[in-house]
């Protein structure tokens, strides 16, 4: 390999056919005279612009079909000509410099074209240099050079992360690995499970219980997840009514009065709430608005007056923390869109309440397709404000345009799976943790179940990983009409 040119932080390296280099791999440009080495990542591979190749191909393609023959090439020059014609140009991005064995972010120097030696740097060396694994490793999978890559759980702590990729590329699978990894280190993980894909995390593929079984709680709203109004304080119910059920300001004010009245009289039940709204002296439109929301609360099945069937979400969180971490899965698969919003608002409000009162330390929230149950305006709140309370979110989506640009910019970690759609790639490239060229070029060619890790988890060295398998019972698979035929 030979250094060809440098433009900005892009290096062009000439590579010959017998040198195997793949997109995503790291190269070390060693300049012994300067006593420095530059680390670059291959983000694209092109054919070198060898003069005359087009002419050669045009003329050979026009005659090869009907002319046979042989070459009497005693010096075997043709092999050299073909070697030249197959030369490739590696488009690389500069990622830092090694001086005296230490990694620095310096990239302002220029290695020598004539005496620099270029070779691949094994991921193992890179991981050691950049101290990527840390003290709380979560095994993600194998890199291109078969190195088992683990990320440091510390780098998910207090961070905003995004897992995105087109349908069927393994987003949920990766999220399960992250969630279980965090739970292993005692973290509380709450998963907003849109399709019921995580409900079997406590089971092996053969259906037997796995070591996580006792750490996993699955909550099904209206079934195993019901709450009383008494457990739900005014702040939580107001958020639910305003954000999830769209209660207007004036009506919200009246509701506050009703709630306080019931609270004072010790009659904070669904039944009494309904009666109070009916009998409350206020504008009829306000009364209608309040009653329609009340009906929604009742019909959701999420609220109950029966203390025996209600659970305390807050207690569950505290218990999980006491037991050394675990995963609470809120299964939203059988919940209607409006009820879904209500449940999520309730859960988030309770989380915020518990966190702000230091009842629990921190929660890792995994939100699948968050746009389906959270209003766009609310995301900023989660990302910016609630992270200070200790709510660290991981957004999981196959529609990158549903995540607000601000979130991409603030994301500390991005786990990118394959995308081919130009529009999607453009949106993803807004992630501030890597340059747009790297993202669009590498992600486009990622095979299924391969992920490009960006951000703090890889110390800003984008790394391609083949995600490891997980012995967990698979749920949420697409149901096929021709399933039997497929099995045959």
């Amino acid at each position, binding site marked *: 390999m030979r250094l060809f040119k440098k433009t900005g932080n892009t290096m062009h390296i000439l590579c010959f056919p017998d040198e195997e280099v793949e997109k995503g791999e790291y190269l070390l440009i060693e300049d012994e005279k300067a006593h420095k080495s530059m680390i670059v990542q291959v983000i694209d591979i092109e054919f070198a612009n*060898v*003069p*005359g*190749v087009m*002419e*050669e191909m045009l*003329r050979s393609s026009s*005659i090869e079909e*009907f*002319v*046979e*023959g*042989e*070459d*009497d*090439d*005693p*010096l075997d*020059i*043709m092999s*050299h*000509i*073909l*070697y*030249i*014609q197959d030369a490739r140009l590696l488009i690389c991005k500069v990622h830092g410099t090694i001086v005296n064995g230490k990694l620095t972010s310096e990239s302002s120097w220029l290695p020598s074209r004539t005496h620099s030696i270029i070779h691949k740097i094994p991921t193992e060396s890179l991981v050691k240099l950049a101290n990527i694994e840390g003290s709380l490793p979560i095994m993600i999978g194998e890199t291109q050079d078969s190195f088992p890559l683990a990320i440091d759980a510390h780098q998910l702590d207090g961070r905003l992360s995004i897992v995105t990729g087109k349908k069927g590329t393994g987003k949920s699978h990766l999220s399960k690995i992250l969630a279980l990894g965090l739970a292993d280190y005692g973290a509380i993980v709450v998963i907003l499970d849109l399709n019921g894909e995580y409900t079997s995390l406590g089971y092996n593929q053969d259906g037997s219980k796995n070591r996580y079984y006792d750490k996993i709680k699955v909550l099904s709203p209206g079934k195993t997840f019901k709450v009383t109004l008494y457990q739900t304080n005014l702040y939580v119910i107001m958020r639910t009514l305003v954000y999830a059920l769209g209660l207007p300001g004036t009506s919200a004010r009246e509701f506050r009065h009703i709630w306080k009245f019931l609270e004072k009289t010790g009659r904070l039940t669904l039944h009494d709430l309904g009666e109070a709204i009916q009998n409350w002296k206020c504008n009829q439109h306000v009364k209608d608005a309040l009653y329609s929301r009340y009906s929604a609360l009742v019909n959701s099945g999420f609220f109950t007056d029966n203390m025996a069937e209600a659970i305390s979400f807050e207690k569950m969180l505290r218990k999980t923390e006491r037991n050394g971490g675990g995963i609470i899965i809120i299964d939203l698969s059988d919940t209607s869109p409006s009820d879904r919003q209500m449940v999520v608002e309730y859960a988030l409000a309770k989380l915020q309440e518990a966190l702000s009162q230091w009842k629990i330390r921190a929660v890792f929230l995994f939100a699948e397709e968050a746009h389906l149950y959270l209003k766009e305006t609310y995301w900023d709140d989660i990302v910016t404000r609630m992270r200070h309370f200790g709510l660290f979110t991981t957004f999981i989506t196959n529609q990158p345009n549903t995540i607000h640009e601000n979130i991409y910019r603030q994301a500390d970690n991005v786990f990118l799976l394959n995308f081919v759609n130009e529009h999607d790639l453009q949106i993803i490239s807004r992630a501030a943790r890597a340059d747009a060229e790297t993202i669009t070029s590498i992600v486009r060619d990622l095979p299924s179940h391969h992920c490009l890790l960006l951000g703090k988890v890889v110390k800003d060295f984008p790394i391609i990983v083949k995600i490891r398998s997980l012995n967990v019972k698979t749920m949420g698979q697409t149901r096929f009409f021709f399933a039997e035929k497929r099995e045959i």
Partner: protein
Amino acid sequence: MIGQLQYETTPKYSFPRSLKDAGISKRIVELSLNSMRTASGRIFDVNDEELASFFTERVDDKYQLSIKDGSFPASIVPLRAIHDETPIIGIDVSSIKIGVTDAGAIYAVRGAVVTKINNCYRYVRFGPLPFHITKENIHEVFSELSRDLSVRFHLPSYIDSQIYLCNIIEKRLRAYVSRLVRRSIILWDGSLTAGMQRNLINDLSKMLRTARENSNIVMGISKDTSLKFIGWRITDLLNGYKPPCLFEIRSPSLSHAGSLRVLGRIYVARLAKGGCAFRLDIDKAIPREESIVAVEKLIGNEMLYQGYPETLRLAHIYSTFTASDVIGIQRLLIRKYGLKLVAHNNMHRTLFGPYGTRLGD
């Protein structure tokens, strides 16, 4: 012992293999290798500008002929295609300057022979072969190369080395083909003319004679001719005539035209409808009628692209060097002979920096 039937192939149909097996390349390869050994470890200067100029096409009938007005009896011969599967053989050779060493220059030569036999095209490509030509070895290389041709080349000037090298290899290839094939039409790129030196005339005459002895007919086709008549290029004289047709130029002055000896009968030929007109030289020793029949066989048995024979077109394509060929050859030379590549020393840039350069420098 189990007997095995031995089939003997007709010589003309196994021609391409015969060419390779005949060891045509052996001496040339040895000479190439010997000359290249003298380049070992030398400084090697690749001048792209110079290289570009060597990609230019040569003029096919490089010898200047003139037809005196009034001495130009000519006749139009309409042609009729004869389909009889006569084999057609096209020969072409290309050369290029690869670079300069501190002792001389390195050239590469490549030849191609394309045959059309039984309606199938086949090619044999010979080379590329690099030659390091220096003041010390120039005489040895050229006399060795021309030895089999029974021709004594006078020492070529250093500047003409590339042309000489190309011509000698082409002559050798032509000579081998004339000897190896039978009852074929052999197409040369260029005209059937020679300089007035006796050895050059003998050389060409001998090749034509060998071809005749093997019942072959040699035709020289010039893509670009300098022959003019009353200020018109002779290829323009066929405008208005229905192709395929021949226009024979019978000028007594052409037999000994200045310093040239014309060994062919000169025609202007338009061989296909919509095609171009070319100068066509046919061995003068072949009777006129037979020559015309040979052209009719060429039309009947060859594919004509823009009126130009496909075998010759393919031979040209296969022999010509592209820029990537040159880079490949340069790579071989550096790796195999340890040539030390240096950047071309541009005197203008050295002396005047950015102010002394011409447009494109």
